[in-house]
């Protein structure tokens, strides 16, 4: 028979969207749960908790990571960016606007993670071709759109950015 122990709680400081947040968590708490339920940043969605669907993707030091496969205590000392962190104070980011323009979302559940993954892609490869976009998004599942309009959104955001660059 297992014995019941008092649950251990530790204090950690997380750097999320450029702000430091000090929270008390159990060491076993997932980063996704802390972001959502302790910090109230509910744009990060939990779809499988098995590391497969990609809906909980956040950027850790700029790289897309699944926040359901990471304990919050492991995220100390890293820069975390969630969808709230890439949304401008007013209006939409170029990628967000492209998703709206090209109907790159339906139910919207996978969308914040799609946008974050695309952000990371475009920072590394500002002019990706379709195959690169599809490869980059292959770890983010979407059940509604069949991906075509998502791919169009990312390609268009890249094209608009390079047009702006050229001006």
């Amino acid at each position, binding site marked *: *028979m*297992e014995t*019941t122990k*008092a649950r251990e709680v530790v204090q950690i400081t997380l750097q999320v969207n450029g702000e430091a947040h000090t929270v008390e968590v*159990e060491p*076993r*708490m997932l980063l996704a749960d802390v972001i*959502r*339920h302790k910090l109230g*940043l*509910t*744009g*990060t*969605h*939990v*779809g*499988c*908790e*098995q590391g*497969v*669907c990609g*809906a909980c993707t956040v950027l850790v030091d700029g790289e897309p990571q699944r926040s359901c496969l990471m304990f919050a205590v492991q995220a100390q000392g890293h820069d975390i960016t*969630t*969808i*709230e962190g890439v*949304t401008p104070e007013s209006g*939409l980011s170029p990628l*967000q606007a492209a*998703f*709206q*323009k090209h*109907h790159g*979302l*339906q*139910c*919207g*559940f*996978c*969308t*914040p993670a799609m*946008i974050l993954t695309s952000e990371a892609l475009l920072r590394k490869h500002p002019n990706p071709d*379709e195959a690169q*976009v*599809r*490869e980059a*998004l*292959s*770890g*983010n*599942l*979407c*059940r*509604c*759109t*069949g*991906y*075509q*309009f*998502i*791919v169009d959104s990312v390609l268009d955001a890249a094209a608009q950015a390079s047009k702006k660059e050229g001006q």
Partner: protein
Amino acid sequence: MADIASRPQFTGSRVTRLEDARLVSGQGRYLDDVEFPGMLEVAFVRSNRPAAKILKIDVEAARKLPGVKAVWTHEDCPLGIKNAGFDCTQWVLAKDEVRYVGEPVVAIAAESRYVAEDAADLVQIQYEALPPVLDVRTALKESTRQVHEGKSNVFFHRERKTDGFDEAFAAAEHRLSETFIFHRQTGAAMENRAFAAVTDPFTGRLTCYCGHQSPHELRSELCEMLDLPENMVRVVVPEVGGAFGIKASMYPEYLVVAWMALKLRRPVKWISDRQESFLADVHARDGVHDVEVAFNSDGTIVALKDHMMADGGAYTAVPFCGAIGETVTAASVLTGPYKIPHQATVIDCTYSNKTPLGAYRGVWGPIASFIQEGVVDRVARYLKMDPAEVRRVNMLSDEDFPYRNPSKMVYDKGSYLQSMEDALRLIGYEDFRKRQAELRKQGRYIGIGISVFVEPTASASSEAGSVGYEACTVRVEPNGTVTAALGLGPTGQGHETTMAQLIADQLGVDVTDVVVLHGDTDSAPFGGGTGGSRSGTIGGGAAITAGREMRQKLIKLAAHALEASEEDIELCDGKAYVTGVPAKSMTIRELAQLAYTNVKGLPPGMQPGLEVVARYLPPFRVSFSNGTHIAAVEVHTDTGKIDVIDYAVVNDCGNLINPTIVEGQIHGGVAQGIGEAFLEELRYDRDGQLVTTSMQDYLLPASVEVPRMKIEHIQTPSAAEGGFKGMGEGSLIAAPAALIGAVSDALEPFGVMVNAMPVTPAQVLAWVDQAETSA
């Protein structure tokens, strides 16, 4: 007075979605974002046996765990779910016996989900195993154990045959037979199922939050099963992360959570995890079909026979029993777009020790389409005819409409042959055949599959319930903006945009001035919800009807205020003006202020305020959308991998409200078709354990597996308001048959004709090995 405000500005246009801004910025509120102070979270202990007597449940250790508020078994929550059509109740927490892996047995409410799951681990259940019943053919045998003791395993049996079937079948020049097999699948929406309930402290009413396709249907079911009056229950559907049919059902967890909120007097929430989702969301398909076809040497098919068997799982789901949908509806359109005069069907739906069958997008469709197209492809191969040519020989033509099929279903006008010819052109059929022949010489195997589909839409009954109409309220607010509410249950389809397009055109206002509410039984008029591809047609009809009534009211008001006759008033650009005298006008805002505040300025007999509610019932039982999908694949005979290399769709869903949204629906349906044809299978092992309970085992199509699609539209209007037909399911109805047909075509040199889905790489390799061994 024109039929709409002016020329339609928004209906038929590619309007960008009004719901998107909040969704792309992570501001959508889904069910797990519903939180109240003091909220408890629930975890379930589920059966890990497919069939067993419950001998003992020990919950003491779980009850003692700090943070646990309640540990419930059947005695604490003796509620049941019963489909009125069948003699079978599922207790929301199993009583005495479990009948599938995943069936809820114990419910635990605790201060957090983490604690609830800790407690779930401490529950001990002692079982005595029973022999599980795991497939439909076994369930049909007299000697098999009864899943529900004292009741036949066959819970539905029906036989139908057209007059003269036997003679026609016997007289035909040729006959072929085949068994078609459809494995289990499920909707697998990205957001898992969930439910929250809270008693309103001011009124004592129960408020339930649930990602559901039919808010009013859910309220009715909750009230009936909890024995509460409907004015004491409010259902709120927040943002829903996809549904696809699985969120049209009543589930045991919902009743447990609602009962806990009432009994524990605390807000309570349950969120399914993904493993629970695979175990306990309704499953779909799981059918075996023994098919025979009779035909003549010119390719004419004269008679089709099908023994349709569906494994319904342990209980008959509410409100929609999937086994009935997958068979009875398939039987009603089994001949698809082909003029096959004779049909005979025998239907058997059986119980098993598997998860109950409910709805998944295109219920019946992938099954009937695969049979109908599979039969045509077999006839073509047998007669050495081009598969497209056999389709032409049998296809309905323009003079056949309205067409009554052998199941007495009446098809309204469509564009069957034209859609196929257009799709053949779009994919470059003749060139493909040449390329196919060349590549075969190099040992590469590409193939093409044609699927000409019928899609019965907007019918009176669907998985969303059996309300044949839809309702809409339209209110012009005192400042001239418009608020509408419908009883629909959108889960990503964009109703806030499409319904606003229709209403804006009626009122001559900008689409962004129309806010569409849905999903709250306190604000929405009673309606049927979303399912069976009914929202655009029936909901759209309600939006147009309510919008038109409001327009008439505004015109009457404007005519009175502007001292003109009603015939001369036009609504456009947010204004009412007198035709030919643009200077003589009032804005909608001015009219609204008049209507709400200047009671003496109103026309005689007109009530103050601007609010209407209208209901719309289409003038038909069903309207048929149609179209053609053509898939091209390459099958790699060394690895078994299948690549979709090209895909063409010609779709006819009547008049389009928003072509971009329609195309998005098609893309998504084709992707799900790729899953259905090649990836998705809920596999039970021989002991009755479901072994595909993660997304690593139950594979969904990813961005690299879904090709770019070419889409064209044909618009054959229906008789409904606006000329719309439904279209939410046609792409999943059509796609699997096209994809599987393409594999059969690619592997013709190996003598392969596919009869089961999904087709996996291992299956491909087995076929290739077999062909090489026998050669």
